[in-house]
């Protein structure tokens, strides 16, 4: 497993994409620091990057990587190694690369230009979302043999979680506005990793809006130890289930 991972990682870290992605992150972060007058604006811009760009790039890259590496995967499958290890080494290499790009690309400028400790949560959330979307991308990839189709599915995941789902939530709470909706909204948020990450980040950066009447309920929930455990737990589930499911399919897949 670690041997496989070592080589997959070596390959991916040296790829042009890894370097470009990291440079892109550095560029974006540095320009955000240049443009924004204060740290809170920096955080909010970075939050948008984490919520939109990071999942998109993670998803598309993971799918592309899966298909570009298909022959290598096949080669590995003909070797005396477990299918699980082949799968996990590929996925982990992608995840580690994406995380490193965030850590270096955003973390380094932060370390140099100054940051608050709450920005660490931002980094963690970005990495968590990378994992979630890499998992979803691998799931889409094992579900189909066609690269274009897989990218299509991956992009639908992305659009669904970052836009469509929130629209549905808004529609639902609008339709049932006469009822107490705090708990229902909370439950709905749990079902979307992007929302979950967004709220975890907001709790650190920009709680002002969440402090209103209803917001206080959420603030209390997400601020409490139980709430933090629950949200991180659910986010963890979001990181794990696509991986487990796609691994299951991968184990039975024909190459």
């Amino acid at each position: 497993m670690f041997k496989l991972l070592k080589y997959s990682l070596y390959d991916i870290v040296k790829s042009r994409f890894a370097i470009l992605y990291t440079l892109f992150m550095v560029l974006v972060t540095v320009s955000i620091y240049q443009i924004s007058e204060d740290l809170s604006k920096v955080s909010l811009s970075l939050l948008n990057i984490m919520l939109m760009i990071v999942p998109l790039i993670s998803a598309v890259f993971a799918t592309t990587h899966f298909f570009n590496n298909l022959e290598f995967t096949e080669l590995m499958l003909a070797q005396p190694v477990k299918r699980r290890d082949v799968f996990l080494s590929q996925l982990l290499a992608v995840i580690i690369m994406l995380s490193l790009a965030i850590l270096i690309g955003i973390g380094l400028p932060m370390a140099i230009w100054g940051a608050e400790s709450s920005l660490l949560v931002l980094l963690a959330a970005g990495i968590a979302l990378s994992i979630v979307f890499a998992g979803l991308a691998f799931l889409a990839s094992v579900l189909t043999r066609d690269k274009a189709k897989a990218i299509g599915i991956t992009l639908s995941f992305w659009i669904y979680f970052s836009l469509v789902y929130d629209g549905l939530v808004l529609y639902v709470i609008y339709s049932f506005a006469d009822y107490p909706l705090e708990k229902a909204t909370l439950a709905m948020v749990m079902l979307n990793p992007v929302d979950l990450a967004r709220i975890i980040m907001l709790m650190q950066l920009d709680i002002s809006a969440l402090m209103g009447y209803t917001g206080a309920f959420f603030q209390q929930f997400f601020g409490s130890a139980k709430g933090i455990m629950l949200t991180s737990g659910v986010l963890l589930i979001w990181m794990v289930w696509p991986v487990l499911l796609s691994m299951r399919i991968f184990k039975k897949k024909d190459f």
Partner: protein
Amino acid sequence: MKAIIFIWTLALLGVIFPVFGNTLQIKPGQSIQAAIDKAESGDTLLIAKGLYQENEITIRKPLTLIGQDFPVIDGQNKGNIILVAAAQVNIVGLELINTGFSNMEDSAAIKFFDSDEATVENNRLNNTFFGIHFSNSKNMRIRGNQLRSTSEKEYQTGNGIHLWKCHHATIENNFVTGHRDGIYLEFVTNSTAIKNLIEDNKRYGLHFMFSHDNSYVENTFKKNGAGVSVMYTRNVLMKDNIFEDNWGPGSYGILLKDISNSEVTGNIFRKNTVGIYMEGSSRTTFKNNTFRENGWALKLMASCDDNTFVANNFIANTFDISTNGSLILNKLTENYWDKYEGYDLNKDQIGDIPYRPINLYSVIVEKIPAAVMLWRSFLIGLLDRIEKAIPSITPENMVDNSPKLRPYDFGKQHL
């Protein structure tokens, strides 16, 4: 510093009451009440440093009590400590601790009835139920006192400075913390509160009603349970105050209910859930205030009319303004809005297109509070953009037609 104030106070008192009375010295072990009973009208009682265990010390004649290096008068958790029912009583430099905790009789460290020309100055009040309590009095000066309550719950403590049916009061340079309301005024008129620091009180920093013609200048109201709440009053001047860190549901920088013909100028509203919450208020001018990092800078209920917001800074608030109705009869003009994205072709520092401070999302959140969970999501950003291009839900006349391009410089404190 304290010594200087002390000497200065003595000198001042000497000027004010030059003709009256003798000076008597009280030492620990002696009874203050006995000394008071013995004293003549206009006498000065010097109380030496030490511990005096007395309560319900009653003063019924003009007298001056001066503590030397803060003698401690311990009320032993029984009733009031000092009761005054006379004019021209001055209480200076005492440390008063441990009043009773009765809601029935409103136990206080110093309680005045029907007084005139009273001075309460440079006292330290610790662990008192009410702090300084006046009723039916006039022309009092409450200056430089430090009031600290250590109770944990709101019902366990009374108000710090409490005035009922008074006029011409001056409340200056006091520090109040841990009480129910920092300053409470009811039926108090023609009075002034200046440079007080009111923080961490359980309910309101400042709470008044039916208190017309008062001014509040350069006070700081910070981290109070529900901020500041003022109601049923006209002709108020609020100038250069700071309202900050009032977080929580039902917590406001300031809540204005039925306030009219007033002026709110040069204040800073920083990091409050709601900067100003207004209900049933009218004919009030808000000028040169800075609203910074609030959840909502303004919540303007539809019951408000004819108010003017001119030349204020709105910076880094989650929402600038929200409202519950569609008919808005208030005027916004020449404010700086950091969310303004317009342009200025004629270079007059006034944006060429109007700014609409109410965005779609704030309307949604006002109707369905649970929608706050979608804050900063992509969807909301998209909706707000669309609404900006084609306004449909947001009130049409809530518009600043001459938004400033650069923030006003109101001085360092406003940054």
